């Protein structure tokens, strides 16, 4: 698709690339939200960065005021006009329509004169007073849209805020290709936060929700929501294992980075087995060795079937000594897997620590000495239930630190609602990435609340699909 860069930092990211060429987009907002600045930035950067000439049509504000105001951002509008890359046109709304529809009229002459590709109209709200009746207004704006589209002009039409909360959206929202809303929201009691939201953009997948923006020295700067600082150091030194769950891989910058700790928080109703299955299977397919501690609800038989669904034979992996299971409950495992089961039941905490040192660590060490990588899957709920909260708080930091130092990838499964807020935040701190999944009403949701890329997601719908990886985040 032919996309036009908006010229506004961060805005193109929200539009997944830019505005479709030739679109007519409404930008609405209350006074002081920066509509004029956004419109002029679209034209200025369009001319300077993209070589696309633009036309700014103002109905009320005089151009001399705009020349002065925009100079504060270092935008020399008069210079661009001299170079035929911009025109700041001052006229009445009725006259514009008249000239737009006139064959060879002033509007067409002007487009030709500068080779115009972008237009901003400030503001279409004036037509409400001119047109009077609602039907006349609809026809007027329909005519405006037709002319702009006919000339394939990518256009921003500024509009004063109209919609009352809970009211019906104005008909222009249906008529035009896109609607962007700028707002000033109360923030932390005594502050205000500027937010930008794309309500509609035909032909583009958009990042939904309100995104904060600031008016800086160089113009409007949008910070897409759910952006946090990426862990550059970690991403640079590690490679990623793609899970096959598209949206998750995208948020993680390609897949689960090796040598990291991934925490999956799941409530009791949520079905997490496909999420866990896809992540475990992707690492086994990549040749990692697996050390797993299954939850009390997930029997070895369930695990065998789950791995089989992802094309992995538990028996074959056991025969190759590529999977190991820490067993806390003395459960029965399939015959072929039994040699790989490490029985930790009936051990008190101190004995368990010694058992780990004497029995477990040599196995991990042996794998590492063979040049193999480890993927550790731990059901933390089991440790909490069997060994207690204090044990987890005392041992987890050193265990995860040790795992990370050997490049092992760790996936921890936990239920935050059972362990309380303080312990949850401790676990979040200990982990490099956090995925939460829960059921609300008729849907299951998943949300990445921490990731090494710094990207966090909105709550995504969890959907089962028929083919590998059997789960999709929408």
């Amino acid at each position, binding site marked *: 698709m032919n996309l036009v860069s908006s010229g506004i930092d961060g805005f193109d990211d929200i539009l997944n690339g830019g505005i479709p060429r030739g679109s007519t987009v409404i930008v609405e907002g209350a006074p002081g939200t920066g509509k004029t600045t956004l419109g002029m930035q679209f034209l200025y950067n369009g001319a300077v960065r993209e070589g696309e000439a633009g036309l700014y049509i103002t109905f009320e504000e*005089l*151009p001399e005021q705009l020349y002065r105001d925009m100079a504060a951002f270092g935008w020399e509008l008069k210079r661009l006009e001299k170079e035929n890359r911009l025109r700041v*046109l*001052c*006229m009445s709304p009725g*006259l514009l329509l008249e000239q737009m529809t006139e064959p060879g009229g002033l509007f067409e002459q002007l487009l030709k004169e500068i080779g115009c590709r972008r237009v901003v109209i400030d503001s279409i709200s004036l037509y409400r007073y001119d047109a009077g009746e609602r039907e006349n207004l609809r026809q007027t704006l329909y005519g405006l849209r037709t002319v702009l589209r006919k000339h394939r002009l990518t256009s921003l039409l500024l509009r004063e805020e109209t919609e009352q909360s809970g009211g019906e959206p104005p008909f222009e929202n249906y008529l035009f290709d896109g609607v962007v809303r700028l707002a000033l929201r109360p923030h932390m009691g005594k502050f205000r936060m500027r937010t930008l939201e794309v309500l509609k953009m035909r032909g583009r997948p958009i990042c939904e929700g309100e995104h904060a923006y600031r008016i800086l020295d160089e113009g409007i700067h949008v910070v897409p929501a759910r952006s946090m600082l990426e862990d550059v150091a970690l991403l640079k030194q590690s490679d990623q294992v793609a899970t096959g769950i598209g949206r998750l891989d995208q948020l993680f910058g390609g897949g689960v980075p090796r040598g990291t700790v991934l925490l999956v928080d799941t409530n009791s109703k949520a079905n997490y087995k496909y999420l866990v299955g896809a992540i475990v299977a992707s690492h086994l397919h990549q040749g990692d060795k697996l050390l797993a501690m299954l939850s009390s609800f997930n029997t070895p038989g369930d695990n065998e079937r789950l791995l089989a669904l992802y094309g992995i034979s538990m028996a074959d992996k056991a025969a190759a000594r590529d999977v190991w299971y820490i067993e806390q409950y003395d459960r029965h495992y399939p015959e072929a897997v039994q040699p790989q089961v490490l029985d930790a039941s009936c051990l008190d905490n101190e004995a368990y620590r010694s058992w780990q040192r004497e029995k477990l660590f040599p196995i991990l060490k042996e794998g590492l000495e063979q040049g193999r990588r480890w993927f550790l899957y731990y059901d933390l709920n089991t440790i909490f239930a069997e060994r207690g909260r204090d044990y987890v708080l005392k041992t987890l930091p050193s265990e995860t630190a040790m795992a990370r130092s050997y490049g092992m990838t760790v996936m921890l499964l936990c239920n935050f609602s059972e362990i309380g807020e303080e312990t949850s935040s401790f676990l979040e701190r200990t982990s490099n990435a956090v995925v939460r999944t829960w059921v609300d009403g008729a849907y299951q949701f998943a949300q990445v609340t921490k990731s090494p890329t710094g990207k966090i997601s909105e709550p995504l719908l969890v959907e089962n699909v028929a083919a590998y990886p059997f789960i999709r985040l929408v």
Partner: protein
Amino acid sequence: MRDELTLRLQLECTLFFEANPYTLESVQGLALRLGRRPDHLETILGRLVELAILERLGEGQRAIYRYIQPAVAADSDLEWARP
């Protein structure tokens, strides 16, 4: 209208177009922007058209006025010849 007032309005119109060179307006529209009466402006705009400061497109109430930018070089570098 007195000469003094005519001159004042002429100057006002010229300065307006000089500051907003890409204005396209009817007498009514200009009256609104300048805060003047349309009947006062009509004569003044006609005079500015005669002086080739403005261009009139169309006739009567539908006539539109626009600025004719003077063809002068604004940014010239002067260099004194050394004796």
